[in-house]
Each structure stands twice: as structure tokens, then as C-alpha cells.
């Protein structure tokens, strides 16, 4: 698969403050890529660099276009960063994902309205299109934000803590939806989470982000007890149960 994003000796930070140093890794087209790490470790900084809104202090972050066009991201922010005091409808929120394509001075056309409806149907919330976004549950809002990202027809979907603050069933439902978008639509997915379980059973490649410990590779190579214990500075177990990986804090006892 061709490379989409390449970190070449990239050092990231703000002003004189270095957050992550000398990173070298590549995210390819079709990847299902997870980024985990403790709070404040630099996940958001890394995400901003991937999105192209934070320039590296040194080195290079190369973002490769697809078929001669610049790489288009579908970004799904954390729900609580959106201040929804005004009662935008779900349809209006998803239409915002089209604004870049619609362009300045132009108004949404029939094609844009069709794409919005398709995106809503794709994430199973077409029935909510006339409801106010601010009145939805956390899980419904997340689906709408994913629909908005899909409406821009992205080459890569980037999700920042997509399951934050969700109950168990909503969380699984969102993770299954993201998984389906990757498997069925062959969409490149980059997901940031501080919930290890979220990524352990879904992504294919993983980056563990910590200031003095950055590891990236295939999930099974990186998601090891040794790595996790080192990053979180406590004993951590990775235990298979019914074919799924379960992350537990604590030492192994006996056999």
C-alpha cells in the first residue's frame, strides 16, 4: 500500500517545548492505525501534526496526496470540544462537512444534499436528520460527527477519543461502526484513544505515545505487557479471553 503520512526524523512541540522527538514511522493507505498513551503524553500533538495543523520543529511530516489531489482527511473531534448552544439540525451539521467542496460564495446543491443523506444512512442515523444536534445522546452525536467526516469524501478518517464518556453499549456500537467503515469501505482509519481496550481489539497497527517511549508497529508486536508496563509505570497484563485481548492492571499470580 502507498504511504499516506511519513514522519521523517520529526520533532514535535510548541515554541521551545519539545513534546515528541525524532519520530520515524509511516501510515499507509488502508491502515487501521491506533495511537494510545497516558494523558499528556503527546497524542494530540501527534494528531495535529498528522492533520497538518502543527508544523514539526525539525525533520519532516510528509503528507502524500491520492491520485494527484491533496490528501483529504475526515476529522472527527472529541464531542465535548463542540459548543452546541445553537440548535443546528443533524442535516446542517453534516452539511458542514461539505463546505470545503462547496466553496466560498456558493450554496449547497442537490448533489451535496444527496451526499449528506447517504452519509447519514451509512452510519444509521438518517432518521435523526431533522433533530437538533444538541439534543442527541453521546453515541448519536458521535455517529453524526462521523457522518460529517464521511460527507467530505475523505481518504482517511481520523478520530480523536471517539468513545470518551460513552456507556458500554454505545462504545461497542461506535467501535463496530468504525471497524465496518474500515473493512467494507477500505477507509484508512487513524484513531486516538486513552482506552487500551478500544484499540487492542480493533486496530491493526499501533503507536504507543509517551515522551520518552515511542513505539510503533503491528498490534501484536507493540501491545505487549512489557511495553505497557513501561509506559504506564505499573504492572499490566494482556490476557486473551474468548479470542479478545483484555488489558488488566496488576501482576500475574501463579500460572
Amino acid at each position, binding site marked *: 500500500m502507498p504511504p499516506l503520512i511519513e514522519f521523517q526524523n520529526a520533532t514535535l512541540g510548541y515554541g521551545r517545548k519539545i513534546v515528541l522527538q525524532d519520530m520515524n514511522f509511516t501510515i499507509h493507505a488502508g491502515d487501521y492505525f491506533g495511537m494510545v498513551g497516558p494523558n499528556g503524553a503527546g497524542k494530540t500533538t501527534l494528531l495535529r501534526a498528522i492533520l497538518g495543523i502543527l508544523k514539526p520543529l525539525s525533520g519532516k511530516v510528509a503528507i502524500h496526496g491520492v491520485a494527484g489531489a491533496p490528501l483529504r*482527511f475526515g476529522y472527527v473531534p472529541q464531542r465535548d470540544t*463542540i*459548543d452546541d448552544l445553537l440548535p443546528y439540525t443533524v442535516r446542517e451539521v453534516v452539511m458542514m462537512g461539505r463546505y470545503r467542496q462547496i466553496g466560498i460564495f456558493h450554496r449547497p446543491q442537490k448533489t451535496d444534499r444527496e451526499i449528506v443523506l447517504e452519509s447519514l444512512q451509512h452510519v444509521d442515523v438518517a432518521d435523526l436528520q431533522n433533530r437538533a444536534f444538541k439534543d442527541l445522546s453521546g453515541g448519536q452525536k458521535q455517529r453524526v460527527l462521523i457522518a460529517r467526516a464521511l460527507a467530505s469524501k475523505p481518504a482517511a478518517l481520523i478520530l480523536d477519543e471517539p468513545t470518551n464518556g460513552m456507556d458500554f453499549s454505545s462504545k461497542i456500537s461506535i467501535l463496530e461502526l468504525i471497524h465496518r467503515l474500515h473493512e467494507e469501505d477500505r477507509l484508512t482509519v487513524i484513531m486516538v484513544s486513552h482506552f487500551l481496550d478500544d484499540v487492542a481489539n480493533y486496530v491493526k497497527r499501533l503507536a504507543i505515545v509517551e515522551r520518552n517511549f515511542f513505539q510503533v508497529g503491528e498490534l501484536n508486536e507493540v501491545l505487549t505487557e512489557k511495553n505497557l508496563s513501561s509506559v504506564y509505570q505499573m504492572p499490566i497484563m494482556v490476557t486473551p479471553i474468548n479470542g479478545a485481548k483484555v488489558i488488566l492492571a496488576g501482576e500475574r499470580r501463579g500460572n
Partner: protein
Amino acid sequence: MEIKEIIATIIAEFPHALYGSVIVGALCAFLGVYIVARRVVFLGAVLTQISVLGLALTFLPFIAVSHTIGSLVVTIIAVIMLSRLLTGKKIPRDAMLGFIFAFAIAARILILQKTPKVEVAEIENLLRGDILFVTPELFYLMLGVFIAAMVVHGLFFKEFAYIAFDAETARTQGFNTGGWETLFYVIAAVVIAVATHIVGDIFVFGFLVIPPLAAMQLVKSVKAIFLVSFLIGALTPVLGLVLAFKFDFPASPTIIAVAAVVLMLTYALRRR
């Protein structure tokens, strides 16, 4: 005097006051929807005080510019500086705005103490905006600002709406969010500076907040909120002026009192 008679008198004697307060009310009410939705109401209060400070500065003997130009220049510079200061993390945003608010009022009082040109009471009247004595020049300037602001907001409604709703995602899509934010606040600064000169700081700040809040109680869609806020902003000054004439009250506080009653009524009637 009968209501009809009062209206006829206002139209005949103070047309610029009437139409000026209508366009200022409507425009502030429209922009106020964004100000309230972005939760930057205090910024509106600060900008009105800065524009009054700009006006006061023009009374100093060594500053030879018109009151409106002084107010405009100081407010626009302040907005551009604020857009940088408010993104810093060392001082909390509210504290920074509070400091500027207090400084603007204190500086205005000190300037007025040392102004030799005209009597302080006359200056205070100008600084508070005396609606009834709006000059044709000021009215046409305000009309020009009204048309320009509404055209820009009409052309870029979707961009302003998107950036107010979710600037972070807009930025990832290639929108120059900083540029759009600056454009929004520069327009707000121009409106506030000219409007404060015409109707005073209490009117301007009141209409940035009260009509949007009333509209949010009444209607469910975003476009309807903008429209209803605009209409409340346009109609309330007419009723306020009539009542001010009828009961011999000062115009600006009467208009604000009427707007407050409208807000309380809409709150009582709000959608369930």
C-alpha cells in the same frame, strides 16, 4: 400626546434617531447571536468600553481626529491585540477581559478629568450616545456599516457559522480559521465603535445580548434565531422611543428596559 402623534413627531423631528436606532438595534442583535453562541458576551462589554475610550481620547488637545475615527481606530487595534492576547494560556481569558474592561473605564475617567475643550457633561452625553441628536452624517455612516456588515455576513454565512460551531474541524479542512475569526471580530469592532457613538454603550451592549437570548427562547432553528433576533432588535427601539417620548424618559435606558421586558415575555412564552 397620543401614540400616533408621538410617532409622527419622532418621524418628523428625529428621523435619524429613529432609523439610526432601528439599524443599530437590528445589526447588534444579528451579530449578538454569534457573540452569545460563542460565549464571548463579556468581550462585547469590553469592546463597547474600548470604543468609548477611543471616543474620549479624541477630546485630548493633541489628538486631532474626529470622534468616530478615534473610536474606530482604537477599537479595531484592540480587537486585533485581543485576538492574540486571548489565545495565550498564562492569563485566564476572563481575567484578561476584566482587566481591559476596568482599565478602559478608568482611562476614560482620567482623560475626561483633563480635557479642556468642552464641558464634561456635554462629553458624557456624547460618550453615552444621545440618540435624539444623531447627525445625518453619523446616520449615513451607520447605514453604510450596516449594509457592509450584512453583505459580508450574507455572503459568508456558512463559513462564519461553521467556524463558530467547530473551528477545530474547519481548520483541518483547510479553512483559515484565524483569518475568519479576525474578520468577524473586526466587523464587530467597526459596528460597536460607530454604534456606540450613535446610541451609547448601554444600548449597544444590551442589544448584543438581549434580542439573541429572546430569539433563542422563541424559535427552534438557527436561521430563525438570526431572523427573530434581527426583528426584535429592529422593532424594540421604535417602541422604546415612543415610550421615552410619552413618559419623558431618556431614550437609551427606555429602549433597554423595553428589550428586557420582551426577553422576560419570551422566557415566559418559551417553547416547551
